[in-house]
């Protein structure tokens, strides 16, 4: 069995796969402030749900912000892991757009899943999951409800600021002027989609397209970004674990290299 751990800025994901690269179990826990603790937590959970023990894991690869703090044999970058994960699931994909807690990225891969080019957000958090987390708390709506409310909107508001702090005051002012919360939410999804579209355009949108990362669980955002790009993406069943899955696939490769 092989383990991939993605120690992300917002959530830590652990995936166990078998020799064939099939997912046996996975776990997602909040990263909190201590990557070491959250990665141990994720590992414990994934072992529990798989019924395996740590001795059953022949190789582990870590990735994500806390990659060096996680007890794994090898570390790999998120870009490579996401590409590996998507290539296994959808070999026809050439462009991947990943939106996570603190980073958004677009990756262009070739027919063998090799990375050709990538682009990541600048140091600002506006095009990331953190932006939506901040907004959901201001609007008093849990992050899981954003998607449902998005599709209830009839007239999305226009958010012009790309700064999280300024966008916050913009949203408050829209609401105080009588805009509906669902219109604010749809407007926020459009704003973040716009930003990610602009960034990703630097490497282009060669078909097929896949969306990954925690934010891709939000159908409202997926809808806004798909419309902006003008293409229908493929999505893994659980988009948030794609990177950890890719890390686990890297573990198989590493094990083979070492034998």
């Amino acid at each position: 069995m092989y383990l991939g751990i993605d120690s992300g800025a917002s959530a830590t994901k652990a995936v166990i796969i078998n020799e064939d690269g099939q997912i046996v179990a996975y776990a997602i826990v909040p990263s909190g402030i201590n990557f070491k603790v959250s990665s141990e937590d994720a590992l414990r959970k994934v072992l529990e749900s798989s019924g395996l023990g740590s001795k059953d894991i022949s190789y582990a690869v870590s990735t994500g912000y806390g990659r060096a703090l996680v007890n794994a044999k090898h570390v790999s970058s998120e870009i490579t892991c996401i590409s590996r994960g998507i290539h296994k699931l959808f070999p026809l994909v050439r462009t991947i757009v990943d939106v996570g807690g603190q980073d958004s990225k677009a990756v262009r891969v070739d027919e063998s899943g090799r990375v050709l080019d990538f682009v990541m957000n600048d140091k600002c958090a506006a095009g990331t999951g953190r932006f939506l987390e901040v907004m959901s708390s201001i609007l008093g709506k849990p992050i899981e409800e954003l998607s449902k409310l998005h599709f209830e909107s009839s007239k999305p508001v226009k958010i012009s600021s790309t700064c999280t702090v300024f966008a916050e005051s913009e949203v408050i002012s829209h609401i105080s002027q009588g805009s509906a919360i669902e219109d604010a939410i749809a407007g926020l999804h459009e704003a973040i989609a716009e930003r990610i579209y602009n960034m990703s355009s630097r490497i282009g949108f060669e078909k097929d397209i896949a969306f990954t990362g925690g934010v891709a669980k939000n159908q409202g955002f997926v809808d806004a970004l798909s419309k902006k790009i003008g293409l229908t993406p493929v999505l893994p069943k659980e988009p948030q674990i794609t990177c950890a899955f890719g890390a686990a696939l890297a573990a198989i490769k590493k094990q083979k290299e070492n034998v």
Partner: protein
Amino acid sequence: MVNTSAQTGRSRVLQATRKTGELIMDYFSKAWDAKAQGKPIAWITVFTPVELLRALDIYPVAPEHFAAMCSARGVILDYLEEAERKGYSQNLCSYSRGNLGYALSGMSGLMPSPDILVTFRNSCDVYVKWWQSLHVHLGTPLFVGESPYVLTVDDLDNYVLDYVVKQLEQLVNIAEKRFGLRFDMERFVNILKLSDRASELWLETLKLRRFRPCPLGGRDSASDIFPLVVMQGKEEAIEFYEELIGEVKEKVAKAEGTIENERFRLLFDGIWLWYALDLIKYFEDRGAVFVYEPYSEAWAYRLDASKPLESLARKVLANGLNLDIDLRIERFSESIKEFQIDGAVLFSNRSCKSWSVPQQVTADILTKEFNIPHLLFEADMADPRQYAEAQIKNRIDAFLEVLGES
């Protein structure tokens, strides 16, 4: 055990590089000596012809250089925050902000207060407004030299050149009258020869970076450039560059590189991140060495002492940021081949629009003409508050993995 990615052998800086700190400290301490002796101190922008000032016995110091040094030593925040408390916005160039903070807080540090402010508008549009602000804040006399943009190499020989020569003469007249100094042509010619020799040595040294393994890395070039920025025309600069080239030639002969296992040869485009120079080591620890930076060539210029003023005027005009983009691209493309570049790191610098705006042109050349991968990241050259370390290292790791696969 944690394997923090592909760490390869050790990397080291040159012996000569270790001496730059002392050399620069000495340069500043001698500025205070000059001040005490009643010699005028000029605050200059870094593409001002120091050779001319030196010939007049005016002691030049460069606030940009001082700000970079303060940033590298971790003491620039005091000055940045002082400027911000006085109302200067964080959006402004951090060199100018740091310097204005210094100017507005007593000027008691390493850099003595100015007796004249001299700038040439030959690389940066902010210079003039910055120097004007200093002039108003400090009441110090101001000289602004105008240098037209060089559109073709012919401009280095036509009325554009004459125009700059006239201004150099004007600067001499003003300084002579203001400070009762006398311009000595013989002394000037000698200074030009010394300046030319330092440039010659440095350019020759940079060329040696074409060898594999590269004998002089980014941590060296980032420091070794300074004697050429402020000490042109001084014997000490020549002594430094002679020692440096000797050491580098020895390394080439022994096939000793900056890093033990050279995997990638990189180009760095931009001004260095002074407060985070250890980022260069982060690359080196992963087998990547910087072998070429346009920045490192910026102050090197061969002078012809037989036509002193003309030659110096050409130097004022011909710095990279004042050159036509096609001329810059030509040099850039040559270097990619000459130094056998595998990848490029482009630093989009919040403070320096002159450098950062044309970077997409550079990026396109890398991709379309050479099919060389590049990494572009954002930060500031001197203000550490604009730097997201974990995020940048995350991108570097991904970039080096991509390079490793290609």
